[in-house]
């Protein structure tokens, strides 16, 4: 029997992304295989508090807010919905922790690690690059560190996460089947920065 191996959605675009990067200006790469779990629970319920205690930080309650712990990033996706991002291989354990904290209360915990992959965009030109296909105001005044937004980038549904404003760094969560299209679009949009 053939040996099983995992392949990330952008494995065929690794060179495209690397080739579009310009040292000191822009860097594009895939952050593959992160653990991603969707949580839905009433934010006012005792279960939400128990989950906060279990993961080590309260669930963010403002639109676009991101909470961080040493291992996790928790993205606000809706008034009763969060996306938890952890290191590779941690999905099962995270899911077990959340399910236990949720207990018998109404809610859901789903492993969505295969749903989206992440494109990391860093460098001083990253904001300008994203602005070419995104209607949101990405200026640091309105889209600061540890903020996220669900929107359209180049007509594709994405979750944007701003990781740092000083050294601009963004994560773009894109559905696996749209990832190659988005990588090609990013490469095309980044062409002007190559000298």
């Amino acid at each position, binding site marked *: 029997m053939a040996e099983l191996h995992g392949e990330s959605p952008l494995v065929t675009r690794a060179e495209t992304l690397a080739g579009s990067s310009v040292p000191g200006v822009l860097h594009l790469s895939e952050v593959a295989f992160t653990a991603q779990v969707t949580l839905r629970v009433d934010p006012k319920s005792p279960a939400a508090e128990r989950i906060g205690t279990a993961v080590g930080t309260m669930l963010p309650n403002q639109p*676009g807010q991101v909470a961080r712990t040493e291992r996790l990033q928790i993205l606000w996706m*809706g*008034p009763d919905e969060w996306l938890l991002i952890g290191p590779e291989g941690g999905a099962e354990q995270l899911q077990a922790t959340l399910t236990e904290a949720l207990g018998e209360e109404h809610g859901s915990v789903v492993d969505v690690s295969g749903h989206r992959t992440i494109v990391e965009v860093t460098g001083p030109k990253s904001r300008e690059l994203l602005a070419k296909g995104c*209607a*949101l105001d990405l200026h640091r005044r309105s889209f600061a560190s540890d903020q996220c937004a*669900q*929107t359209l980038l180049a007509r594709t549904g994405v979750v944007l996460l701003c990781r740092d404003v000083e050294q601009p760094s963004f994560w773009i969560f894109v559905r696996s089947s749209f990832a190659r299209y988005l990588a090609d679009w990013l490469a095309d949009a980044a062409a002007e920065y190559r000298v």
Partner: protein
Amino acid sequence: MMLIPCPWCGPRNETEFHYGGQADVSYPADPQAVSDVDWARFLFFRANTKGIFTERWNHQAGCRRWFTVRRDTTTNEIFHDDSHEAVTR
């Protein structure tokens, strides 16, 4: 392009939204008791107001929540005087 105020995400481009038609169309309390004519009326007939219209929108490319908006269908002006509870119901 309209800027539609999502009660959660703030104003976003119209392209991020899905239109849900007239708001406040209530499901008949006892569907079995409704005549065929009234049932068809409930299913297919909607107001086509020229002027201020209360309608449902879904922020499809964003938080994916339904909300209610009052809009002037002739000018596309959206009215912001509604309470958060009235909008997010």
